[in-house]
């Protein structure tokens, strides 16, 4: 019977991400060691781009100096606007489209990329005011951007990405010096 009431309040319930999203990873983005990205894909195909826990920005108690969505003179992700159900007008992104540049207080700069093809729906403006969100909750409130893949590409866009299992294996194979 599928109507049995279950109120097992002691069990640790799966988190929101576990319930509705699949985690995909891009390791060593553009050949830069440990610049790992994590893509959360909702069952409705919407993708949230986040920093993987292993990203250098999140290591060694670093702090963020600035986050810049202005990726070139002519293009700022902050100007992105979509309208209507069909999300007209959003910037179209390819795998290696930069989303933002993050500068740490030690002046190292990192570029965060889209990792998947799709239409940019929104960027997270909350992290501009509160950069610590990025450090404290990188996979939820500290997300970078929301992307809507094309309907017909919603399966194929993750083909080049690693599954959680593959990613964990990849991380465990890294030389000790690269691991946190």
């Amino acid at each position: 019977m599928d109507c049995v009431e279950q109120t097992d309040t002691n069990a640790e319930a799966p988190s929101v991400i576990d319930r509705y999203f699949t985690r995909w990873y891009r390791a060593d983005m553009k050949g830069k060691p440990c610049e790992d990205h994590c893509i959360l894909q909702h069952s409705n195909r919407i993708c949230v781009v986040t920093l993987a826990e292993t990203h250098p920005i999140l290591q060694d108690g670093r702090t963020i100096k600035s986050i810049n969505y202005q990726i070139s003179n002519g293009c700022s992700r902050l100007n992105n606007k979509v309208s209507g159900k069909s999300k007209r007008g959003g910037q179209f992104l390819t795998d290696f489209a930069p989303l933002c540049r993050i500068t740490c207080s030690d002046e190292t700069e990192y570029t965060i990329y889209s990792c998947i093809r799709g239409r940019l729906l929104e960027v997270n403006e909350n992290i501009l005011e509160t950069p610590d969100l990025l450090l404290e909750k990188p996979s939820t409130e500290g997300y970078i951007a929301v992307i809507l893949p094309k309907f017909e590409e919603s399966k194929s866009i993750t083909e080049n990405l690693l599954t959680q299992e593959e990613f964990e294996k990849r991380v465990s194979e890294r030389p000790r010096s690269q691991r946190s």
Partner: protein
Amino acid sequence: MLPLKEKDKPIIQKLLSAGCCARCVLRFCCLSVHAAYRQPPQETLKELQAFVTEKESSKVQHSSTTENNKSHDAAASETLGGPPSKRAKLEPSEAAAESEENAAAAVITWRNEEESRVCVVCLGILQGLCGAEQAAKIAEAVKKGNYEFDTLVLSVSLPAQLCVREHSCWLHVKKEVREKGLALTKDDVIQVKEAFKWTMQGLVAKQLGGIAVVTKSSFEVGVEFTHPETDSDCHFLAKSCPDCFKPTKNKQSAFTRMAVVKALEKISDAKFLEHYPCPPAHPSSSCTPQDVQCLHVSVFIAGRYNKFCRSLPQTPWLIDGERRMESSVEELIAAPILSAFRADGFNFSSSGREDVDVRTLGNGRPFAMELLNPHRSRFSKVEMMQLQETINKSSDKIRVRDLQIVTREAMSHMKEGEEEKTKSYRALIWTQKPIQSEDITFIDDIKDLTLDQKTPLRVLHRRALAIRQRVIHSMNTRFVDSHHFYLGLKTQAGTYIKEFVHGDFGRTKPNMCQLLKTDTDILELDVESVDVDWPPAIPE
């Protein structure tokens, strides 16, 4: 006696020679006496012929009787050799004096062949297809449908090319009709549809044992005729009026009746006559009647439903065309209703909707259904109550109350209420940090908390991205244990509760995580009430 006037004579003569049937002749005489169409067409024809020849005789009598007889004899012998259409073609080239005589001759020939001839204008619709035999067929189809009805309206669908033929025939007698009455136009010609209905309504009514066939009824019986042989009649119009015939997604052919009528309004008489014979050419076959279509107008049903199950979607849940759950609220409710009303299908709508894992308790959620083509439509209050019982006995996952028949207009009350009314919920909340009962009491004091909700990621694929302001009017808490409590909420309709609790990546602000300064999540959600006062409650 047909109420015809002297000035109808040239019209009748011209039309009979052109190969028009008796009823079509009456139509072009703008005769709107229904009884004239009801009488057998053979009789009408005889009367018409008598009418034109009698006048002819009285006219010719002025010269000499023998001459008159001669001309009759000559005409009769002459026409044995050739069909009247030849005569009709010759007519315009002949001298005006001769034409009258020839017309009379053609009329007589017509008498001989009239049984086998299909009318050039109505393509047989007002001939063999408009009589007791056809009425019996219609009545049989209606009886077979086993509908419950007091009255019916007869609707007729004609092939589009009939308009072209009608136009051609109109141009043929335009001058004569104008002479009959200055104010008469093409619109005064009785339409084939009208003539058909005037003739058939009484016959169909009789076959159905005295059911009233009226002009407005909730039960429609549709008769359709096609005539593939002459479908190409319309095609020349596409060249002269290409903008009238744009290919449409749903229609099989661009030559719809509407498009053809529009094109005929635009085209000049000269251009029409260049491309189309006037009068129209003789067809070799009569129209084909299609299956009789019976359609009862929709019946609307409303009520409230409870959903007691956390694995039941409101509507069938399909992913990539495959079913995710075996049933749904709407299917459980609809099945008994469809079989009681013997309807072909339904459209379900409700005042908002709940997720698959959310229960709807209390008085339930208002819903309404449009029942398509119901074969039965009248139910007493007692019968509706029994139907409700049947639904409730069929499943323990749902329950229905206040089930009633409503009007189409009343359904809008439900959608009006959707945005402005309030809804009450109960949620089981998990907190990451341990809590004590006093840690959550402050929540009870929060009143009219306005949220800024970005369209939840969960629905962003089908809703526009926006920040919507929604108000939580009040909340109350019940402590369960160090990581759990029950949260009651009374909110403005359209508030996303799950996102208020977990925050949706910080996209709903403020959220429960911020209020409690710890991660929170929602484990269970129930709708306790949907405060829309429609449909009216029905005492059990």
